[in-house]
């Protein structure tokens, strides 16, 4: 019998190949997640719930990952994930979504979940544009990039979600690019299996092959080189340093082990019960 690839136990084989564009880096994210699960000895994804919104990366769990998954409204994955996690804290809830879904239309839910230190893992696949709707500017689009809605080059300041979330009560905030496969995989392991609680955010910079790379005339291999070349480790940056607009700050922005929302709510419930009996 042909040996099955290790990731097959996590995937709905009948849905493959994926509908992603040739060369799409979503596959790297699936691979890193699978590898992290494999290395932790996860045999099946029973007990895991994936929640995703609308966009290319939201298709990673729905339908490709073999687990419970909720493919919800644009921007609302984190809000739905909160309902799932609070209703059944035993479930491991993972949100996978893009920069349009999580950092634009869904940014309030993301920030508030981080503020609450809600016990979920969020993987934001930052492809720098709206891919599914044909490459419009997103809140993470670098200045100067030509998109379908900035045909003369984007002039808006982009948002850096890692810096935003670092200032909240989130337990874990990290960013890697698809050129940092092993670091990405290790971050997923760290978030899911070491920290285990609180809000854990991992961003993956994965430029859209169709609407960023092709537009710039870049091949996937040269994107990888560029990403490595332009990456700057967060620990090497000192307060007051100016970071060039081309630079991508990568690394672990924050790693703490504060109690998450679930524990806080359980304490609160105990107090509420005390009031009743007292």
């Amino acid at each position, binding site marked *: 019998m042909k040996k099955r690839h290790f990731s097959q136990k996590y995937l709905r084989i009948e849905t493959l190949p994926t509908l992603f564009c040739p060369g799409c880096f979503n596959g790297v994210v699936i691979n890193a997640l699978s590898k992290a699960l494999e290395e932790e000895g996860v045999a099946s994804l029973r007990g895991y719930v994936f929640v995703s919104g609308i966009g290319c990366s939201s298709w990673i769990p729905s339908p490709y990952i073999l687990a419970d998954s909720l493919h919800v409204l644009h921007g609302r994955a984190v809000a*739905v994930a909160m*309902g799932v996690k609070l209703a059944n804290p035993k479930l491991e809830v993972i949100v996978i979504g893009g920069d349009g879904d999580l950092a634009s239309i869904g940014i309030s839910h993301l920030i508030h979940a981080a503020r609450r230190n809600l016990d979920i893992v969020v993987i934001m696949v930052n492809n720098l544009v709206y891919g599914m709707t044909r490459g419009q500017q997103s809140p993470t689009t670098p200045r100067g990039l030509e998109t379908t809605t900035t045909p003369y080059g984007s002039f808006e300041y982009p948002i850096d979600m890692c810096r935003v979330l670092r200032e909240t009560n989130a337990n874990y905030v990290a960013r890697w690019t698809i050129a940092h496969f092993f670091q990405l995989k290790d971050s997923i392991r760290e978030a899911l299996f070491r920290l285990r609680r609180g809000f854990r955010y991992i961003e993956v910079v994965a430029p859209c092959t169709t609407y960023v790379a092709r537009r710039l005339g870049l091949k996937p291999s040269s994107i990888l080189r560029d990403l490595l070349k332009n990456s700057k480790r967060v620990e090497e940056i000192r307060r007051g340093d100016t970071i060039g607009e081309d630079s991508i700050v990568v690394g672990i922005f924050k790693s703490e082990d504060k109690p998450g929302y679930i524990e806080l709510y359980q304490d609160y419930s105990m107090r509420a019960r005390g009031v009743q009996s007292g």
Partner: protein
Amino acid sequence: MNRVFITGNEAVAYGALAAGCNFYAGYPITPSSEIMHLMARELPRRGGVFVQVEDEIAAINALIGASWAGSRAMTATSGPGFSLMQEGLGYAVMTETPLVVVDVMRAGPATGQATKPAQGDLMQARWGRHGDQVLPVLAPSSPQECYDLVIRAFTIAEELRTPVVVLSDEFIGHGREVVELAGEVRIPSRRRPRSAREPPFYSEDPRVPPPMPRLGDGFNVLVTGSTHDGFGYRDTRSFDTHYKLVKRIWDKIWLNRDTIFDYEAVGIDDAIIGFVAYGSTARSVAKSVEILRREGIRAGYIKLKTLWPIDTKPIEVLAERVEAIIVPELSLGQLVFDIERAAKNYTKIYSFNKVGGGEPIYPRELVELARKVLSR
């Protein structure tokens, strides 16, 4: 039986708790907040979940997640928040997610008059979502009915696997009356699939919803708001899949209209003038009919407790008997369209509209109109 003197909003919360509601996510908004206050007090100490979320969009979406994880979930809001929840309600219809949304209506549009009652959200409750969809809408006219109809809303939600909207209004929400609380309420529990081979999104008989798997039970359930087949796989191209899905969900409500639709008819057997109303307006109507009857004018009324789906037969019966039907509403007129559709070939229909400033429709206004209509 436990008799208490409470407001409509409190009755909504007690009804939800009696129905086994164990998840509430909400956002403060006048005039519904008391529902949230009571749930905030009761749920944490009863082992349930109460969470005050960042906005109404988060509320409805958290309910969706909680419902799939096995909870009985409710939120309450008013006009502006209800508007924000529409997309989420559409998702709940498409994915057949049981949940209850209470809209304590206030004068709108926009911020309008936050503390003043209105009945302007009727059409929005029915048609506020894009696409082809239908969901049950119930309307209480007293604190007692707030209690009873919220329990009924949970029953319908669980039995038909659908979101249900309860349209209350500021008069009822803040009005205080004696309410009889039920000892124990039995709500049918959600049907679960026995095996992963049972499709969670298809049933042979459209009147019966498919079984709903719970997250974490090992069914690898695929929930999506995109058009999907019986097992949840997206199919965003074929006519058959889309038509079959939306038609089945539509039929699930329409073909069960007999059991969902509920109304009360008073004095219509010998009436020469009729009223049709719901919510707080139905109270003015009841009083008007009493006054008219005392004066020797045979009046009757139909009070609608279900606003959608609507069964127009009782209205047709009324229309055949009376010389005119008056439809009073705390809006510029929405329910009147249904009455015209059902009855305009049989009788004359008069709209009576008033909204704003906390002005109720006074019985004397309706009595006067009835007299005038009959003397024409």
